[in-house]
């Protein structure tokens, strides 16, 4: 029993601990190097968006292609609160999380019953609608130019501090996602994915559960939008646009959709490689090629490949039994009977 608790503890807290250690090492290495700080901030912000998609797609099976839109809603809300209403930053933060969460809830209520492809497409059109709203919002959104000159908050006063707090946010979100995955709720989400009819017969409402998951993901994206806006002091319609939503899908697929840390790893690897490309023009060829190759050779992501490799190495050592999956990993699917047993009636 104690061993079970330890294993669960390792699975729940391990990923967040890995993020804390990884971010600390990275911050020590980059110091005050301006370009490295900028890259680190980009990775952390995009990782939050990828985590939001990881929650909705990895746990709920909802391929939402509007994460950047939810972040933009959060970013604009905080910018409007700061520049028009002159309210404290903490109010901006709360609104930046709440507004996309409510939007996500409304959108999910309308769309979660759709097939995965239709749902993905509906969220893609949502991104287009939001972009036009931001562009045509007049003084409120700043039109095509956007809102600039937003006062920095205590959290984002300097680039180093912005980077630090964004990574703290990543670690907290990883912990929340990890806890959710290994909770009764997480089991219910797996059951909904495995067999929706069985889930409904057990009293689980897929629409209510998936809508709340969608709203949670929207809130995470809103947090990313707040951090983006307050650390760069501006937001424009192109800042968190449709392209970024598709980039985020690539990050999650490459990292591993079934793993809590998959979105963070995918984002870090791809952004670091992207920053070394000869020009921005070839970025799409790189991302497109990576997505195709990942789907062909590693459809479950980098973390799955690493996990499999580690298992093989362990099995190759004489006298050692393969152990449980490492921290930060976890099977996306659980057997139907196992899942149904764990769900309260």
């Amino acid at each position, binding site marked *: 029993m104690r061993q079970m608790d330890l294993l669960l503890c390792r699975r729940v807290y391990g990923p967040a601990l890995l993020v804390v250690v990884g971010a600390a090492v990275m911050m020590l290495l980059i110091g005050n190097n301006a370009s490295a700080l900028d890259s680190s901030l980009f990775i952390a912000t995009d990782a939050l968006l990828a985590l939001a998609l990881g929650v909705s797609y990895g746990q709920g099976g909802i391929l939402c292609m509007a994460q950047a839109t939810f972040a933009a809603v959060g970013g604009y809300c905080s910018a409007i609160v700061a520049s028009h209403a002159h309210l404290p930053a903490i109010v901006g933060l709360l609104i930046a999380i709440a507004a996309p969460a409510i939007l996500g809830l409304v959108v999910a209520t309308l769309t979660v019953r*759709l097939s995965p*492809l239709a749902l993905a497409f509906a969220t893609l059109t949502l991104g287009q609608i939001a972009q036009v709203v931001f562009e045509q919002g007049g003084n409120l959104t700043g039109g095509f130019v956007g809102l600039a000159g937003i006062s920095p908050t205590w959290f984002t006063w300097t680039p180093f501090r912005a980077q630090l707090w964004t990574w703290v946010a990543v670690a907290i979100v990883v912990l929340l996602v990890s806890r959710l995955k290994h909770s009764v709720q997480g089991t219910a989400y797996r059951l909904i994915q495995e067999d929706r009819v069985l889930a409904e017969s057990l009293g689980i409402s897929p629409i209510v559960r998936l809508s709340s998951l969608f709203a949670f993901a929207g809130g995470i994206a809103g947090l990313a939008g707040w951090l983006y806006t307050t650390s760069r002091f501006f937001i424009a319609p192109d800042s968190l646009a449709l392209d970024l939503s598709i980039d985020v899908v690539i990050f999650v697929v490459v990292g591993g959709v079934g793993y809590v840390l998959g979105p963070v790893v995918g984002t870090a690897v791809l952004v670091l490689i992207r920053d070394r490309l000869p020009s921005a023009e070839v970025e799409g060829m790189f991302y497109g090629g990576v997505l195709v190759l990942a789907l062909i050779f590693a459809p479950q992501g980098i973390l799955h490949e690493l996990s499999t490799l580690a298992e093989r190495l362990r099995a190759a050592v004489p006298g050692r039994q393969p152990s449980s999956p490492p921290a930060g990993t976890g099977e996306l699917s659980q057997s139907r009977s196992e899942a149904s047993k764990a769900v309260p009636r």
Partner: protein
Amino acid sequence: MHTFLQLLLEGILSGAVIGLLAMPFNIAYATTKSFDTAVGGYAVVSGMAVHEYGLGRGVPIGLASGVLGSLIMAGTFLVLRKRHQADPIIVVLASFGVLFALISFAYWRYGGDEVYKQLLGGTVDIGGIRLVTTSVLGLGVALVVLIALWVLLRWSALGRLMRASADDAHHAEITGIPVTWVQVGAFIVSGLLAAVGGIFAVGTSGIGTDLGASLTIQAFGAVIIAGARGPGSSLVSAMVIGMVTAFATGYSSGGLADIVTPAFIFIVLASGRLDFAKGNVRRA
């Protein structure tokens, strides 16, 4: 009334160009039970090649570019089918990768500006309503393609092979159907049609790398709204989208027109009545 009719016909004509991009979705779906969202990429590389090289050299280069792009997608699909049984969502994601790569290639090769190239000069006058000749030709081509596809998919032996390949590729192969070649052929025809759509797009509304994803969204929207029933429904649906956009542009100010089309697609999708894939690609 005159303005209404003018906008109505302009909407139908611009919808026909979108229809040329929507019909390839139906061909891929009829053969693979999945969608190729890279059509916007085929259209962009084709249209921009016509602008770059002129009509004489540009049209064959554009068509070849579109076909080459579709061959990359066909190869990707075949490898995915062999390794993972080609889950429709995985194929769609992979086609997004090809779309991204093609748009990026066009940006690198031809630049990021939106371009326009006159294909045919002059206008056609129908009862006082003036229509651009290229747009009218686009409608004619769309109708010819529709009839050809209808005959191919509904009445020809090849159409039956295509449907058999989509329904059960494994059993179709056992019965001697060259599934691989049928599916590659379907992707090539899709690429060719999308390239034709791209050529008409550069000759009517203009084309650019920023429009690649937007063209895919509009065309895919037409297919989904039509319930993926067939090329005819998709063409009609594309024309409805074209009309909605034309009326929004003509009767509203500011950016309302830009919001009407995606909002219309979103509302139709959210209604859930036309969800083509219910019970088909749903995970559960």
